[in-house]
């Protein structure tokens, strides 16, 4: 029972010296170092990396928990931030399924090894297809921003044109991603919004559209939370210029709001995060793209598209890649853009979410968000000098509150709220200086009346104590 010389690591079975010796003997080598003889000596790193020594599992647990303890979560504080990542309830079954060791550790096997992965992703595509009321949805991509960028690039390839029109109310974070994905080939041109309603300014749109326009891209609800009602007019305009209409959409709205296919969209995209993903400091984002069953569009998808097919046994379903030759996997630089690991597990999770909610649940979800956010707007709007919402349009989930007529900046108010255990809305004063001291609040089904009242009370108090802070 003597102590071991060198620690064998639990993650690396063959650190056992006797096993190494036996394997080297089989190979016919004397040392492991010999196996690295393909690397020139001057490239071999001789120093010791400055990384602390190994921790046992218990030490690791205490160490990591100790660091992460410094975070304050949205379960500890009341959260009213949205702006692209939303605080929804995640059903326990979503977590159960995406934490199953099978789904968690699978990757890229064939349907003979990974049937469940194929079926779950095919079902996800099919469920989303119903939600957006279109026939084709891809395997999930990175996030809304990249999905939008890819949609625009698809439109550009379809039309052979290199301009895209986007609304000025788009999320600046998202726009950065789109611009980078479009550069250097495609020019992003911003379209003004109507000052009162926030809606796209049709006159400006008409001015800017041309036969160089590959697509008009807009969002519903917009980044600033209001519902864009002129979808049909916009898509008609696009069609009249042989341009495509692309609509970015928050899927949590689609139980109550018309899907973009109903007002002329050719391509729809958005983020799956509301459908069962924890926020995880942004790690829950996941993009989707949908379209009609139209070969012109389908052949431009860079993503994998799973299809269903019979097997040699009657009545059995199999799955596989539709039109694989589009992809960069098959064609390298000749393929459509590029494809690789994206966010498949969140697609499976979104499928679970939609299966659980069904049509009734999605409707209740949308309705509950409308009711709660309208109540919040009403209550916030009742505070003297506070304007909620800044825009006259109908809102879904998010809305802009303007504090310009109070004697406090959004920054000051948010600091005060933070001290009261509340994450206030996103400060828009830098991104949209034209909106003055404005803040984007997000209300979902998780916010009880009590939560909202607590927010309103805190803001009232903050504004009352004018001198302080």
């Amino acid at each position, binding site marked *: 029972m003597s102590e071991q010389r060198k620690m064998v690591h639990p993650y690396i079975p063959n650190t056992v010296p006797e096993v190494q010796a036996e394997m080297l003997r089989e190979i016919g080598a004397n040392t492991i170092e010999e196996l690295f003889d393909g690397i020139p000596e*001057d490239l071999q790193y001789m120093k010791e990396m400055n990384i602390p020594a190994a921790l046992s599992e218990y030490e690791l647990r205490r160490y990591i928990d100790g660091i992460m303890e410094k975070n304050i979560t949205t379960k500890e504080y009341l959260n009213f931030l949205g702006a692209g990542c939303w605080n929804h309830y995640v059903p326990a079954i979503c977590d159960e399924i995406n934490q199953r*060791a*099978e789904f968690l550790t699978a990757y890229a096997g064939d349907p003979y*090894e990974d049937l469940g992965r194929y079926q779950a992703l095919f079902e996800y595509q099919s469920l989303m*297809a119903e939600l957006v009321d279109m026939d084709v949805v891809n395997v999930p991509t990175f996030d809304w921003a*990249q999905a939008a960028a890819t949609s625009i690039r698809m439109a550009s390839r379809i039309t052979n044109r290199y301009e895209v029109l986007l609304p000025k109310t788009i999320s600046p974070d998202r726009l950065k991603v789109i611009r980078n994905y479009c550069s250097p080939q495609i020019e992003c041109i911003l379209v003004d919004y109507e000052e009162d309603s926030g809606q796209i300014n049709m006159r400006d749109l008409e001015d800017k559209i041309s036969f160089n326009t590959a697509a008009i891209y807009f969002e519903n609800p917009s980044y600033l939370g209001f519902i864009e009602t002129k979808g049909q007019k916009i898509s008609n305009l696009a069609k009249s210029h042989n341009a495509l209409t692309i609509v970015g959409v928050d899927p949590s709205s689609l139980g109550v709001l018309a899907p973009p296919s109903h*007002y002329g969209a050719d391509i729809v995209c958005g983020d799956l995060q509301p459908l069962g993903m924890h926020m995880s400091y942004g790690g829950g984002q996941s993009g989707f793209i949908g379209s009609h069953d139209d070969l012109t569009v389908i052949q431009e998808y860079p993503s994998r598209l799973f299809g*269903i097919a019979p097997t040699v046994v009657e009545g059995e379903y199999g799955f596989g890649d539709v039109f694989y030759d589009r992809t960069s996997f098959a064609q390298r630089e000749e393929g459509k853009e*590029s494809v690789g*690991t994206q966010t498949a597990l969140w697609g499976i999770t979104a499928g679970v979410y939609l299966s659980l909610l069904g049509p009734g649940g999605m409707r209740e979800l949308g309705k509950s968000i409308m009711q709660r956010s309208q109540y919040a707007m009403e209550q916030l709007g009742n505070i003297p000098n506070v304007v909620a919402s800044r825009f006259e349009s109908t809102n879904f989930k998010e809305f802009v509150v303007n504090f310009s007529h109070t004697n406090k900046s959004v920054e000051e108010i948010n600091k005060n709220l933070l001290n009261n255990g509340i994450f206030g809305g996103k400060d828009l004063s830098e991104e949209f200086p034209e909106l003055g001291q404005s803040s984007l609040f997000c209300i979902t089904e998780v916010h009880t009346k009590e939560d909202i009242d607590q927010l309103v009370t805190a803001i009232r108090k903050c504004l009352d104590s004018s001198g302080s802070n």
Partner: protein
Amino acid sequence: WDEPIIFELHQSGERGITLPQVEQEIVDHVGDGITAIPAEMVRKTAPKLPEISQNRVLRHYLRLSQETLGAAFNVEIGQGTCTMKYSPKINEAFASSPKMSELHPLQDVSTVQGILEVMYKLDLCLREISGMDTFSFQPGSGTQSLFAMASIVHAYHEKNGENDQRDEIITTIFSHPSQAATAAVKGYKIITLHPDEDGFPDIEKLKAVVSERTAGFVVANPEDTGIYNPRIKEFTKIVHDAGGICYYDQANANGLLGITRAKEAGFDMCFFNLHKTFSTPHACGGPATGALGVVDRLKEFMPGPLVEQQGESYILNDNLKHSIGKVRSFQGVPQTVLRAYAWVRALGAEGLKDVAKIAVLNNNYLYHKIAGIRGASAPYIKGKRLEQVRYSWEQLTKETGVTTEDISRRMADFAHQYWSSHHPFIVPEPFTLEPTESLSKADLDEYIASLTYVASEAYTNPKKVKDAPHNSSIHRVDEQDYFDNPDKWAISWRSYLKKAKQVEAVRS
């Protein structure tokens, strides 16, 4: 399981979950909320999602999970290039803790010091491993990291006013297709080098194509063959001398940890897939992270914001002068950064080096054994393989007619993963195996035994192999028609129902 498609489980009226009732006081204030929606924007027909009770939804997905051969369940060697290693369970506890999962990405930085500390400290570790000067964890995969690097190359030459001139990026055929594809997205013309007869990238070919049009050079090393290019420093020097940027695909760096670094080989940038070398789970294909590192002179081009230390606390620095903007929303996939950092700390410097050493030992053992299987070979130079090898069944196919695809299906009968290679098949009838450090000798012997059995079966009973699988969740899929014929392919259940009806209509 013979589990139906989820739509087939629909029973009108069932519910999988209910949502909180809206409080009566709220209803009193605002009514039903939805009459406020402008008429043209009201959804008029409910989405045709299925209605299923909770128990049945759970059963459905649990069954599908069991029909998925995750790395945790098999001797995971067959998905070569993917570095399918053990994803320690403890790291899943960290990733799913509310202290990680319940953070909003726009929270005040004072309330997310924990996760920022983790990101910063993993950055420091990766600097040690690579020699680079700063890392960003924003890219959501290797492909997105390659795209970010191509964007940085573009921004760099733009700043220097050379963008019009420099429109070519050079890569190699044994590197991942995303290297070429992402550079093409960025508008570059792609030049692809083929190897010499020993499988090494050919320096003469590089010299022949490098010019003042060269914007950059991107390569993996070792490539998919597992062969390390020993003249890599010369390669990068040639490109640098011509004014190009050299960037390094280290998606899989599993044979290199603590052994050799990107910096000393002359690279300006590199990336690591945290879901490969750094053990975070592959999750059926993401979410993931391609950690992107650059040398100091390229820092100002990075996607922002970067996590930096300022006194006792951590901040987000978004003041990068020539930043490419962003490639992914917010800060990427932080829960994966957390997992990877925990993995690094569980191993320490010495353990990380053991990873590389044992991965290479395991691969060479496998290589040695497969050389002994009838019909199998490993093209190019003998030996000199690091963490993986691309093999060939060329001889076996000639002698038996059994192809690498047939063998793939037959290996499924033994619960083994098995992957051929990306296209085009430069190596004929290829298969690519990568045993990481996570597998024991006994595991390797098991995989070898299965492969030997199937190869021998190809000689004795080729039909059995060609008709495979016999013993898997499903039987052979009728591929031809259903995946490449627009009239028959169905990318959603609704599409399938429509097309199946059309087919029936035609038939009747």
